[in-house]
């Protein structure tokens, strides 16, 4: 048995479903980072360039939301797959971290620094992979919650304090930066730089890599210590119990997802902005302002004849302290007094509001000392 295993050069690690899930993650994560980070750092030139390439901020937001929806759908699917493996096929939850992973990590560092002779014998999923998986789960949940808050700010603020929304925005951006930097440093190094690990695409891993990264798993495979599959009748029974539950959960979660993405569009849609305010000349006559009237006076033609202070000139009466009512005053301004060469003024030259301001000032103005 040991002899036979020794000639085996590659070991199956991932099923086609797992590889497909990884591809979805790869595409959505990269796409979300590419469309999300430029939104967080919108003022940076690189962000502007990237947004330009992607077709503008509106399309960037649509892509981001599409990929987010895809990622959440994948998360629901993954929940189903994991439940099937754990509850139907009876697999061990080998992704769950434990005390041994901390021990493994410490031993690995010690080994790297030359403080320890042997590389730790790592299980099917080693501490580094568990950390990444945990980060993906934690990150997706956090991004979905904070994303929901930004996507549906009104619904959120009816339940939670409004101040949660900017905090969600900050967390969403910071978590994204953390995830991207971690992927660049940790994931890139471990599966691309240190050794190009194709197992996520081909499904199997070389013996050499198995020896270094999963020695314990390799030993179990070679010594036949892997848990035997459950009897077919047990699986069949479990399946019958699992499917109704799985379908119900999937439907509920998918419904939740649809609710999530369709609840509000206040943050997405560019609706025509409300009617522009009236800018055409239109006067709402309220009350005159003597100060304005006084300021207006020298600018109008009135001052030409009635004098700079409205005190009158030879042959032209003073208007200060006028006893005219507003209606009388208004009539004079608009109709003029032809027999005294007082011209009529149109609203274009002296708007209604001006007449009111002028009247208010003239009415209050002291008669000039003789």
């Amino acid at each position, binding site marked *: 048995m040991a002899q036979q295993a020794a000639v085996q050069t590659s070991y199956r690690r991932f099923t086609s479903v797992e590889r497909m899930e990884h591809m979805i993650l790869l595409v959505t994560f990269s796409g979300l980072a590419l469309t999300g980070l430029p*939104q967080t750092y*919108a*003022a940076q030139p690189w962000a*502007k360039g990237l*947004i*330009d390439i992607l077709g*503008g*901020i*509106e399309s960037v937001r649509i892509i981001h939301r599409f990929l987010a929806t895809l990622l959440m759908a994948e998360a629901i699917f993954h929940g189903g797959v994991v439940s099937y493996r754990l509850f139907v096929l009876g697999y061990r939850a080998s992704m769950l971290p434990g005390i041994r992973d901390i021990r493994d990590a410490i031993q690995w*560092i010690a*080994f*790297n*620094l*030359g403080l320890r002779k042997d590389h730790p014998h790592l299980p099917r999923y080693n501490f580094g992979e568990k950390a990444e998986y945990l980060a993906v789960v934690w990150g997706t949940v956090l991004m979905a919650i904070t994303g929901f808050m930004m996507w549906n*700010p*009104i619904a959120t*603020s009816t339940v939670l*304090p*409004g*101040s949660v929304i*900017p*905090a969600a*925005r*900050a*967390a969403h951006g*910071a*978590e994204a*930066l*953390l995830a991207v*930097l*971690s992927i660049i*440093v940790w994931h890139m*190094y471990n599966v691309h730089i*240190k050794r190009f690990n194709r197992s996520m695409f081909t499904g199997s891993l070389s013996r050499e890599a198995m020896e270094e990264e999963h020695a314990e798993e390799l030993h179990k495979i070679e010594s036949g210590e892997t848990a035997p599959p459950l009897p077919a009748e047990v699986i069949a029974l479990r399946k019958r119990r699992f499917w109704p539950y799985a379908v119900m959960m999937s439907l509920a979660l998918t419904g939740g997802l649809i609710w999530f993405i369709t609840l509000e569009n*206040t*943050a997405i849609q*560019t*609706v025509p*902005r*409300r009617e*522009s*305010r*009236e*800018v055409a*000349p*239109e*006067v*709402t006559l309220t009350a005159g*302002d003597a*100060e304005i009237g006084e*300021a207006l006076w020298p*600018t109008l033609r009135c001052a*030409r004849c009635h004098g700079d202070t409205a005190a009158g000139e030879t042959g032209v009466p003073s208007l200060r302290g006028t006893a005219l009512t507003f209606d009388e005053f208004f009539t004079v301004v608009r109709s003029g007094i032809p027999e005294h060469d007082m011209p009529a003024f149109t609203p*274009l*030259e*002296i*708007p*209604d*509001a*001006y007449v009111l301001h002028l009247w208010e000032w003239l009415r209050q103005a002291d008669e000039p000392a003789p």
Partner: protein
Amino acid sequence: MSNRMRVAVRIQLVLGLFLFVSGIAMITATAQDAQPTAEPADTQETAVPQTDQPVPPAVDGLVPSESYCLLCHAQPGRVWTLPSGETLSLTVDPQIIHDSVHGFSNPEGPLSCVDCHTQQFFPHPEPAADNVREFQIERYATCRDCHEEQYTSSMDSVHGAAIAAGHLDAATCVDCHGGHDIQEPDASRQQISLTCGKCHGAVFEQYQNSVHGSALFAESNPDVPTCIDCHGVHDIADPTTNLFRVRSPQLCATCHADAELMAKYDITPNVFDSYLTDFHGSTVALFEQQDPNVPTNKAVCFDCHGVHDIARVDAETSRVVRENLVTTCQECHPGATADFPDSWVGHFPPTLESHPLLFLVDLFYKLLIPAVVGAFVLLVLTDIIRRIRERTSRRARTQAES
């Protein structure tokens, strides 16, 4: 027509041509002498003098002097009835022109009538205008002869476009600056906004009560914007376009991001930067950068603060004071609830007191990101060190073996 009169006319001409400046008083005196038979003003209905009027000789090729024009135009009560029935006064008070910017204070020297009223040699050509406004529109192109730049840019303005589209009430040069009585347009800053208010009465009313307008009129504040500081002078753009909207935050920022200016009024100059980091501001900035003509409802400064009726942010009437803010939010977010405005961080950097949750989240990630990424870097480094060590020892082994 007496000999004495003809002589007087000639004397006038000579005096007018050679003693333009110093001869004004004399000219008026002789002009009065020269018109003993002038008819009563109110019967005069046409610009063309009657045959028994003093008819000035034709002046082909010779620039007529001011006094020459004033022979007729100084007569009081002269009016011209246009085909529409409207009348236009033809009487000119030379004193008004002399006191204007085109009078004696003009550094280029005072202008004469025909500098503006070109092609108006006597007898006058028949004007084509049907009414007073058409006549004014016809005439104001004369400003271009000296003020080409201002004239051209006004052609591109909302006013120019409106006139071109047939809305003849839109402002021309003289509607804002005046005709014969042109004064310095900004002799007082108040005057600028008062001029615009002549037509834009409703806007002016809002403005005069705003934080800007009230400071202008009450305190003659030198810093608050008048109409032209936001809208421009001659090249006034249409403020209802997407372009104006998307660029408006930069307009407000010219003053409100100026730390020195804002310090005078104890206003934070951080408003623009903090706006840009917010969802609204970053989106608008991206739109501006991508295509400023794209329509967007993402809030710009005036959506929240108001346009002409901007109030102090702590005033009761302010659209952004906490009591009124939800109503303002609802203009774009119709379902916004009482708690919704708290999702707006404001224009001040968040602190533990003002935005505890946001502040703590920021702090948390400020510590977490370097810690996690730093740890990963260190772990990767230990792995690299080990691999280098293994490689060198392997090489040493193979060398020793060979």
